[in-house]
């Protein structure tokens, strides 16, 4: 091991093309090999948990989408689930189906963006445009449903803001039918590509033990062989009624994380089509009945778990009977993925940094909150 003064200390970020937000990595390079890496985070800290303590429940709801702006529905659903449990607000079935439908479409959009930027890190430019072309369809569907493309503010306690537009379900069904061929296109270009395989197979291996040690969840954990999918293990909303399977792979390297996420896109499509069929067949009262702005939630505390695209998102809510939450704590997936990054980067080649970091699907608003 060369003594540390020969190492070249460089730092990547916080403004950098491939750090998916504002992460700063201080790397010590020995020629081509990375000897040590220290992530410095906090550049995107907006004080989500402090904001909750001086805002009412309804005021805090729009900011919840911004915890992770690529999967806003998951965090809104976690927060609404917690408040509805504490305030004993009943939510009828069609609202649950709408929530699962929009969440799965959001997961598909988030995975598409991940695939595009991951391939861009590795140097292939065209998959990015194909993924964004497909993601654009989902975003315009969300825009016609909720009014905005990324910051939805569509869920409220006890239902959703407004009903589904008339032709929305048909457009979604049409989109779902067109997607499998597109995903097959991505597989043709990427999966067996010798350069991609040689750059990601056996790189950045997370063993099952270290994954649990660093409490990695979501696709990263399932790629290491642990079959932990909160939609299956602890079914919330109506996941127990839906018929789908959770994908796992064995050796937990970058290639398997890629494989798990691409298969998960197909699972999302299956769930979306089931939800669309159900919603088409039975109408239900969807708009939330709670209209008074100063909602009082009785004292109590609750942890609601939701399977977000980047790992488990659990929202701990403690209320003290007033109309403002007493304490909100967000547990997000990328927070722990950044923590395991230095361990993965040890003694790897410098170009592998992009292959490993891209495959972990880390996004910084989730890490800094």
């Amino acid at each position, binding site marked *: 091991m060369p003594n540390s003064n020969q190492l070249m200390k460089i730092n990547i970020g916080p403004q950098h*093309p491939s750090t998916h937000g504002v992460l700063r990595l201080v790397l010590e*390079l020995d020629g081509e090999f990375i000897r040590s890496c220290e992530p410095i985070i906090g550049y995107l800290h907006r004080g989500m948990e402090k904001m909750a303590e001086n805002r009412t429940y309804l005021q805090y709801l729009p900011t919840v989408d911004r915890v992770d702006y690529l999967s806003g529905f998951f965090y809104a659903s976690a927060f609404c689930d917690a408040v509805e449990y504490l305030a004993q607000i009943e939510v009828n079935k069609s609202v649950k189906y709408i929530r699962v439908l929009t969440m799965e479409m959001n997961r598909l959009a988030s995975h598409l963006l991940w695939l595009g930027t991951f391939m861009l890190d590795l140097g*292939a430019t*065209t998959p990015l*445009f194909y993924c964004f*072309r497909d993601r654009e369809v989902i975003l315009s569907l969300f825009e016609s449903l909720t009014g905005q493309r990324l910051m939805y503010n569509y869920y409220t306690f006890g239902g959703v803001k407004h009903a589904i537009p008339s032709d929305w379900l048909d457009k979604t069904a049409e989109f779902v039918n067109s997607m499998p061929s597109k995903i097959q296109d991505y597989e043709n270009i990427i999966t067996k590509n010798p350069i*991609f395989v*040689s*750059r990601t197979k056996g790189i950045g291996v997370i063993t099952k033990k270290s994954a649990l040690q660093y409490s990695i969840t979501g696709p990263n954990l399932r790629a290491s062989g642990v079959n932990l999918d909160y939609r299956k293990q602890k079914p919330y909303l109506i996941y127990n009624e839906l018929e789908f399977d959770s994908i796992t792979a064995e050796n937990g390297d970058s290639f398997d994380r890629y494989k798990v996420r691409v298969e998960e896109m197909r699972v999302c499509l299956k769930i979306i089509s089931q939800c669309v069929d159900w919603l088409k067949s039975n109408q239900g009262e969807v708009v939330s009945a709670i209209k008074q702005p100063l909602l009082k939630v009785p004292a109590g505390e609750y942890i609601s778990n939701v399977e977000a695209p980047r790992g488990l998102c659990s929202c701990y809510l403690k209320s003290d009977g007033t109309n403002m939450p007493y304490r909100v704590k967000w547990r997000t997936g990328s927070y722990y993925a950044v923590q395991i990054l230095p361990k993965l980067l040890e003694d790897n080649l410098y*170009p592998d940094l992009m292959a490993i970091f891209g495959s972990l699907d880390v996004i910084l608003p989730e890490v800094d909150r």
Partner: protein
Amino acid sequence: MNYLYYLYIQFLAKYHLPEAIGMITFPLLPFIIVAVVLIVMVIFLVLLERKVLAIFTQRKGPNRVGPWGLFQTIADAIKLLIKENITPVGAEKFMFTLAPLLAFIPVMAIWGLIPFSAEFDFISYSVGALLFMTIASIPILAILLAGYASNNKYSLLGSMRSVAQAISYELPFVFVLVAVVVLASSMNLGQIVLAQTSVYPFCGWFIFPSFLGFLIVFICALAELNRCPFDLPEAESELVSGYNTEYSGMRFAFFFLAEYAMMFIMCAFIATLFLGGYLSPFGFYLSTKIFGNGHLGQILVYFEQVFWIFLKTFFLIFCMMWVRATLPRLKSNQLMGFAWKVLLPASLLNLLFVCLYKYFLFAK
């Protein structure tokens, strides 16, 4: 060629200029045409690359500056001209300014080597192919010079790596060149093209006996131009942004244009070696059929030959852009390993096969 000379003298005589001036200036004409065509071609190529990549990804590509975005590259060039030419402190002034020129000038020289038609063979040496390889490797020196002269630790590292990559991919290139020379039994590019003539369409070309050689040369050209799967030096924007970190303004424009001009000429060279240069793929020339065999027909045959070589070159350029659209980047250690462990033995294998093919076919 003398018919053209006769036309040129008549043209001068109209402005009652003496014939002597004609005699002096006539040899200059091709080089002026070459320079103008090269600059126009490079400007058009930069735009073509962006348009082709756009078509692959269902986009429109630049279409705001001029009709279909034709003046886009001119606008970029003017922008680069206006930008300030910064010379970093502590840089070797003379070598810092020499490097971009060293990258661009050889490319102009090589342009004349390639036979654009039976008559427009501006520089036809008996060792044309060898001369091409030597001059084509001068820009690699320019990269090394640029890296060293810009007094920047990162660009030195980047230029070292891109020079190592270019050299290790030159070796298979030369071995396949030897195979082609064996096939054509002459180094002169004109002869190589003539050796590929045959009555039936296509089948005289050297791509069929040494298809493996064609693939190797295509890959080596990609590596030499630092293009897609091998664009590690530029892609080092994470660590080192390659040798042209410190360059700005017109100097950067020179490096940028040199890269595209080099791409065009490399593709033209591969076309002459393997795809039968200016020979028309149908075995006969359309213009003789249409305009008969008189003087007019003969002249138009030359221009049709120019058309065929440009068509083949643009087909190869399209393939290079097509590869760029699909493949991700190679890692640095794979890059070197691929050249020495795979391409070099493959090129030797190709040389062996070509020699056997030549021995059995022409032994009688």
